Every structure is written in C-alpha cells, then in structure tokens.
C-alpha cells in the first residue's frame, strides 16, 4: 500500500468513526454557537458594536472550539490501535497526513457553519467579494489548526490532564494562524492586499506539515 493510499485510508476510517460518534455535530458545534450567543448578551444591545466585533468573536470562538475538533475522541488512538497500525506496517507519517486530511475536512465544515452563524447573529459589514478570499483563509487556518492539534494530541497522549495541556500548547502556537485568518478579512475591508496574510498561512501550514512528517516516528514512540 502506497504512502498516500495509507493516508487516505486512515482519513476515511477517522471520518467514519466521527460520523458514528457525532461528537462535533452534536456537541462541539452547538456549544460553539452558544459561545457566539454569549458575547452580545454580555455586551448589551448595541447593534453597531455587535456588528463590529462579529468577525473577531468568530475567530476567538473558532480557535477555542476548533481545538475541541482537533482533539476529538475519534482522532485519539488507544494503545491497541497504535500497536495494530504498527503491526500492519502503517507509516507514522502517513498516519499524521491521514489525520490532518480528516481533521481538516471536519474543521473546514465546523468553521463554515460557525461563520454562517456569525453572519446571521452579528450582521457584520463584510467587504465586497469576501466569500472566496475568506473561504481560502478559513481553509488554510483549518489545515494549520488540525496539524497543530494532531501534534499536540500525540505529545500529550495518555496524560492525566491531556485536554487542558494540549489546549495550553495549541492556543499560543496558533498565533500565526489567527493573525493570518483574521487579517485576510481586515485587509480586504481596507483594500490593502490579502496576499501577505495568505502567504503567512501557507508558510505556517507547510512548516507544521514538515515538522509533523519529520517527527511522526519519534511522536509515535513518545505516545506509547
């Protein structure tokens, strides 16, 4: 089985497990939408302020709840499953790539739904021609966040306070992704060019992908 065939198979299995568990659709996504509802309630009925903070709240909620998507139960292999993959001769790098593919699919879906909810709830002033650049930025952010989540999930596998610890690692490291993603829309509104921000996202995604593939084997050893 080739590297890519292994990666696609891992992604397929991961998505199937997630479909059965339904953690993201039934728990994380509704909770994130509740998160969007809390901010205006705390701020008071100031429609112009609510409309102004909408995109910022979207990124804050997206990153915080996106971590839950990245650290979802379906992406966590127990010891037996790891041993099985090792016995089957699955390349650890293919496992990382597979996890990144499935996680990115879920993360993009999660962020798109959250974006739609934000637009409905906050009525932000969006610049003309926003959908394509924003979706591209969103996609690149989702890939990076998933890569970070996969790496942090492996580093903290089996630890007592795994979720809190992995979140503490992911959130600060996601800084280039948050900046790149949020500045895409901001630059579009100011008409100052979005290319540098998209390049920042691409560079971060690539750096994380290289780190993930290069460290896949030591990561697998570390999580045993």
């Amino acid at each position, binding site marked *: 089985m080739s590297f890519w065939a292994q990666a696609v198979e891992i992604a397929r299995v991961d998505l199937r497990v997630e479909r059965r568990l339904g953690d993201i659709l039934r728990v994380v996504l509704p909770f994130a939408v509740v998160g969007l509802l809390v901010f205006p309630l705390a701020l008071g009925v100031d429609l112009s302020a609510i409309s102004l903070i909408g995109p910022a709240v979207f990124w804050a909620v997206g990153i915080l709840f996106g971590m839950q998507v990245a650290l979802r139960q379906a992406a966590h292999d127990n010891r037996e499953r790891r041993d099985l993959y090792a016995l089957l001769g699955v390349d650890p790098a293919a496992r990382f790539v597979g996890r990144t593919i499935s996680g990115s699919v879920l993360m993009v879906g999660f962020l798109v739904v959250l974006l739609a909810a934000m637009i409905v709830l906050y009525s932000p002033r969006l610049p003309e021609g926003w959908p394509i650049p924003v979706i591209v930025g969103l996609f690149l952010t989702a890939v990076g966040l998933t890569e970070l989540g996969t790496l942090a999930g492996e580093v903290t596998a089996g630890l007592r306070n795994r979720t809190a610890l992995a979140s503490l*690692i992911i959130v600060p490291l996601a*800084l*280039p992704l948050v900046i790149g993603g949020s500045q895409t829309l901001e630059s579009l509104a100011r008409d100052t060019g979005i290319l540098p921000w998209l390049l920042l996202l691409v560079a971060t995604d690539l750096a994380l992908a290289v*780190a993930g593939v290069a*460290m896949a084997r030591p990561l697998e050893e*570390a999580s045993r």
Partner: protein
Amino acid sequence: MNRVRILLATAGIAVLTGLWFAFISPVDRLQGEFSRILNLHAPFMWVAFLAFGVTAFASIMWLIRRTLRWDRLAVASVELGVVFTATGLFTGMVWGQAVWGRAWDWADPRMASTAVMFFVYIGYLALRRAIPDPEMRAKRSALLGAIAVIQVPLVYFSVNLFRSLHQTQSIRPDGATMPREMLTALLVNFVAITYLYFALLVGRLHLARLEEASAAETARGPDAVTPPRLSEVKDV
C-alpha cells in the same frame, strides 16, 4: 562548582559594567531618562529569543542522539528563556507606561505576540511536570521544543509586519538609528546580558546534574538495616 561561582561572579561584574554604561550614555531628546530602559529591555528580549533557539537546537539534538545532556540543556534554556521573557515584558511595560502612557498597548503587536510566546513555553514546562518518567518526558518535550520555535520569527518581525507603536530594530544592516555613545552602551549591555545567560545556563546545568544524582540516590534507597545478633543483645 568553583567554575560556576567564577562564571556567576564575572557575569555580575559584566552586568554592573553594562548598567554603568547605560547610566553614562546620553538620553533620547523626547523620552528623557526613560530611554535608558532600552539598554535592558532589548538585551533581555534578545537573550529570550536566543534561549528558545538553544532549546530548539538541543531538542533536535536529543531526537538525534538520545542523550540526557541535550534534554538538560533544553529545559535549562527554556527556564531561563521564560525568566528573560518575563523580565523583558516587564521592562517593556514600564517603558510603555512612561512613554505611551499605557503599560499594555494593543497597538503594539510585539507585546501581544511576546506574551503569547511566553505562554507557549509555560506550556512546555507544564508538559514536563505532567510526565513522571524521565525518558518519556525528554522525548515529548523534545518534540514540543523543536516545534515551538516556529513562532519566534513571527514575534521578532511583528514590528515590521504590522502597523505598530513599537519602534523597529535599532541596529540594522545599513547602520544604527542612534548616536555612537548610545549604541556602545547598548552593545555592552547585549554582551553582558548574553554572558549572564550563559553563566546562569552553566549553573542550571550543574544543578540539574546534582538533582539527578540525588534522585538516583533516593531511588536506590538507604542501606538495609541489619538486625542485631542475639549474642550481641544484653539483658535477654
């Protein structure tokens, strides 16, 4: 031990010399006496970046060589990096309060991104505390140490990337943006604080070796108690 003491003593002298240079150098026309903070703030931040770079290098070396000394170096450097980052942030806030009228300014992306970098390495130290097994601890923290450095360039170049209140680099390839006397004081402080970092690093590594020896001794346990022989016991 003597070597560590000599290093720390000479580092103390170097820092005092740096401070003396900072106090005799001319001040900025607009910022007045507060401009002297630059002589501590910039070197502290430079050493913090250096410390995290050393951590990344030591982490990669651990992954290649798997010897404990690289793990020791990585964690010692992170601890110092965290302390220097906190000190750099504090001096920056004091400077900001004096010059901008606000200790924390969101218009300064360098400040916010440095604070975020600080928390990445707090996470690194938290991860180490969560893993009791030394081999596993070294392995996982080496992976994080190698990945975490990814954001250091973003923090460094944030003043160039964003519209910012923070001044850009004072020393550039095309020359410095300050008079020679101020530049000399700044460079002396760069050398002194870097030397202080290396002295503290050597001291921390020495301490880590002592801690490991003590832990090994504790694990071995005390010598077994030999019960007295009946013939040696009186009044039986």
